[in-house]
């Protein structure tokens, strides 16, 4: 447990901050989570929280400034300026247990999704030898899951791929987990990797306009304060013909019965597993709420179109009945 702890539970912070934020706009489900549950658990488990996150009094004062735009943080409505810190708090606290938790929550199935996602992109595929160099940016790729898969897929496709993957994450804790894990890779794979701490809504100048072949973001864009800004940024840095690819939780509404079981699992079991395994209920409560708040396949596809991409067919591919979906867009040539 390297993550620093702050006094008081995050729930306590919410209780303090909620009345202030409700002035800004209506919270969609103020009764959530149910009072009986919080009585059961809130006393027994100390919640992790990032020490860098602003104290309740800071929040109250910053919320007092009128005219600030709000966004959602799970089921809560918070200021846009606030969300970044709150998400940072979540991921600082789950970084260590992130991969173990993913296995438990999805029965290991997230690996199948990620493998399929990477295979469908065919990174490093070239029609000539030596091929054209490829530059890839893996946004919100902290622990390196996707970047490592991209690199190894490229090495499987050709013996000496001219490929460079930049792993970018806003969160230094996640990034350092990825950096540590990358040391176990073969040297040829490590040579293709670099790490960058950056906000995907405002990429730093070293990521130039029209410079990337592929932009991936896997289970990340849900947490962005302004996903559309990130999409526009992706459009800016991709080459004409470059591909935006996103794997994200989505809606399983097409299969009502399955959806019911899935929602039972995610709202009932996932926060519980988070509490038992990672000792952090609130972060995982946020996780499932943020999945629920994320736009549907069609809405997100329309956002991708709005950012200037072209899509193929429906523009998305459902995985496991829509629990997750792959969205792809291509930046037009002209």
């Amino acid at each position: 447990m390297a993550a620093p702890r702050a006094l008081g539970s995050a729930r306590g912070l919410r209780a303090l901050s909620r009345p202030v934020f409700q002035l800004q706009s209506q919270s969609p489900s103020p009764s959530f989570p149910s009072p009986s549950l919080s009585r059961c658990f809130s006393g027994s488990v100390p919640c992790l929280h990032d020490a860098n996150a602003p104290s309740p009094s800071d929040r109250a004062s910053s919320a007092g400034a009128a005219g600030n735009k709000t966004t959602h943080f799970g089921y809560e409505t918070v200021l846009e300026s606030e969300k970044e810190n709150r998400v940072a708090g979540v991921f600082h606290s789950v970084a260590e247990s992130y991969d173990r938790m993913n296995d438990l929550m999805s029965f290991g199935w997230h690996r199948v999704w990620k493998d399929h996602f990477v295979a469908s992109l065919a990174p490093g595929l070239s029609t000539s030898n030596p091929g054209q160099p490829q530059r890839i940016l893996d946004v919100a790729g902290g622990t390196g899951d996707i970047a490592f898969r991209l690199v190894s897929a490229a090495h499987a496709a050709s013996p000496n791929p001219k490929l460079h993957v930049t792993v970018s994450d806003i969160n230094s804790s996640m990034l350092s987990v990825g950096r540590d894990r990358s040391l176990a890779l073969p040297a040829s794979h490590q040579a293709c990797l670099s790490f960058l701490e950056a906000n995907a809504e405002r990429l730093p100048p070293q990521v130039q306009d029209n410079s990337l072949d592929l932009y991936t973001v896997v289970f990340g864009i849900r947490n962005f304060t302004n996903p559309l800004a990130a999409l526009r940024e992706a459009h800016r840095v991709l080459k004409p013909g470059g591909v935006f690819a996103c794997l994200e939780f989505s809606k399983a509404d097409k299969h009502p019965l399955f959806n019911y079981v899935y929602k039972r699992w995610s709202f009932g079991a996932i926060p519980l597993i988070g509490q038992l395994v990672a000792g952090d209920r609130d972060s995982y409560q946020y996780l499932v709420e943020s999945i629920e708040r994320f736009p549907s396949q069609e809405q997100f596809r329309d956002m991708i179109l709005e950012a200037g991409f072209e899509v193929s067919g429906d523009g998305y591919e459902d995985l496991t009945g829509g629990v997750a979906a792959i969205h792809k867009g291509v930046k037009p040539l002209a």
Partner: protein
Amino acid sequence: MSPSRRFGTSLASQLLRTPLPPSTTRTAFGRHCYHSYDHPPAVAVSYGSTEQAILSAAYTHVPQHGFSQRALALGAEDAGYPTISASVLPDGAFSLIRYHLVTRREELSGKTKTIFGEKNLGAQQLSTAARVEQLTWERLLGNKDVVHRWQEALAIMAQPSYMPSSLKELSLLADDIWFLAGDTSVDPSWYTKRASLATIYASSELFMTTDKSEGFFETRDFLRRRLEEVKQMGSVVGSVSQWLGFTANAGINVLRNKGLRI
């Protein structure tokens, strides 16, 4: 520790008691699955400009490289895109197969006039059956250039994730052929006609992949024989059902004569 006991018993109940978000169910049927003169389908845009550019360029590489990711990558490069652009197509190699199926099928309606054009003006009208045969043969010839790669394609089409859209294309093709042949039936034979034609088309296509004859004349004979069988089968089924109907009717009348209130 008393809290831990309480904790244990609450696990199961918690799983079931957690409130769920209001779920929305969608029931949207986009377009109807038959041809309608009164409600023509909205102008179907099969492909966007980028996919069209990549797929049509990639299609020219199919005879050499098969329905493969490599053909797609070559196509993307020919069309002036980076190699990676091909990966925007959601189904990889299957996208190329579907492109073949869709374009060949759509071509058929354009060809109808040239196939039947002159004959229609003359006195002798082709029968619907003959038109169906003609159109099916025309569609089979659409596979001519890629027939040596078609077994690979069939293997990909048979994969569980692609099966539904492959079958959908097949049913659309059968529907198109009957429609273009001028069939206007609105009875249950609407279904049997399409089902039998789809079966015949699929088996002829498979036959064609191993056909080495000049101009695929063996495939043509195969197709003729299958269609003839169905015709005979249809007339047998028709006669049998007519006989059954007559006998049942007569039986009921006999019973009524005996004083039964039916």
